């Protein structure tokens, strides 16, 4: 009873997917910016 309810497997999959997309956004912005300034 005192255990919190767990996210459903579907929610877990979606959560991992969203997190992966967001992490890719972060790394993408940083990588594009750094490649731009360091390649010249």
């Amino acid at each position, binding site marked *: 009873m*005192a255990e919190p*309810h767990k996210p459903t497997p579907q*929610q877990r999959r979606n959560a991992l997917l969203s997190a992966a997309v967001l992490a890719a956004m*972060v790394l993408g912005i940083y990588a594009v910016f750094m490649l731009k*300034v360091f390649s010249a």
Partner: protein
Amino acid sequence: MSTATHAHDTHGHDHAHAHDHHGPPAGFSRWMYTTNHKDIGTMYLWFSFAMFLMGGSMALLIRAELFQPGLQLVEPQFFNSLTTVHGLVMVFGAIMPAFVGFANWLVPMQIGAADMAFPRMNNWSFWLLIPAALLLVGSFFVPGGAAASGWTLYPPLIIQQGMSIDMTILAVHILGASSIMGSINIITTILNLRAPGMTLMKMPLFVWTWLITAYLLIAVMPVLAGAVTMLLTDRHFGTSFFNAAGGGDPTMFMHIFWFFGHPEVYIMILPAFGIVSQIIPAFARKPLFGYASMVYATSSIAILSFIVWGHHMFTVGMPAAGNLFFMYATMLIAVPTGVKIFNWIATMWKGSMTFETPMLFAVGFLCLFTIGGFSGLVLAITPVDITLHNTYYVVAHFHYVLVSGALFAIMAGIYFWLPKWTGHMYSEGLGKLHFWLSMIGFNVAFFPQHFLGLAGMPRRIPDYALQFTEWNQISTVGAFIFGFSQLLFLYIVISTIRGGAKAPDRTWEGADSLEWTHLPSPVPYHTFETAPVVK
């Protein structure tokens, strides 16, 4: 989203808790290894309060030095370090973590989730703050003293100073990583873990503002990280991005920094809008006026925040067309912001209002943030900014936005949710005293700085011309009233945690989000053992 599921839900919790074997472990390991969003939220809030007192002490040292013209207490170099680290500590150590603390506590409860989507990453986001804070504050004790370039870290000063700069750069990197992980966690939680029936447009406005804020963080934190990486390579690896002698350009840093810096301003104010949008309807006992408009206005403020950065640098020598573009864009961003102010006023209109401490802080926010917004409009006018740039007028402006804006909203939120968190009522009398001391102290400290700026007193100087003395003395008195009244706040919070009258489950009768309607006070360690159904 009104009273959706079972009213008896609240009582079920109490019973279950009496013989609960899954409570938190005792002692230090509870906090070190915790993955509970409430514990992590609490740690964020205490961390930010500690940093607030630290940055506040630096501010009081600054104001003490400025009590009289001439040099009395500190060396000029140390004075510059104080202004720099005060800014960094308050922005990255106090305001931002405080809002993340609120997000940790409230987002899962308000959307009906059991916890954040990634509890272990949540723990890591918090614990990264500690080494960053140690680096930032520890840099005072290394040879050459702490960074003295101003919180904006402008080259060439930042390239010339000693090892404290490297510590600051590392601290900013770590804080950025922490913010990014926090934002990913918050967005993922909001998008995926909402209770059945909790559609996006039924979410409380605090959750909405944090969703948008988190996207802003995702977009600009990598830019800040890039900017400080370039500083690092300029300092140690032979590049000359910002060094004119090597063919670089210091103004490029300003552009990159403010491309981060202006959305950062909205990162610090949008969650404040969210908190105030929860509090004002609760104490006016009316639903928020124009909920959808508020969501739309918040989104458009977020988008527009990316195209106004140049107003921070009207004086560095942009083409006239650039100055004009940023001036127009900045003026236009006032429109959705003004709409929000009118929506809050319309929410209070003909409501049955009462003025408990959270509402006092929220109304104080409304009045003073408007002043800060208007002085922002004044500074947005390019020709006016050219005379006011780098004066105390700017200092007055952004303290009206960040202290009476962001900080007052944080205080309002603490008083609002403290009964829910601790199960005890705070002392209303002391809370009101804290509000009035803060309100008076703040205005006495910062309103005269408008006059000083208009008269031409530059910012970031330890000494000044004699004609500025009187307003500086008044400002210092106000700053000390404001600063020391925060110790009263500390006392109120600690005594509320330790005891006090029992808070009802729905402490504020007008509050209608899930944490008030579905959960007892204090909230149990694990909430929503079964997901609530929102109708």
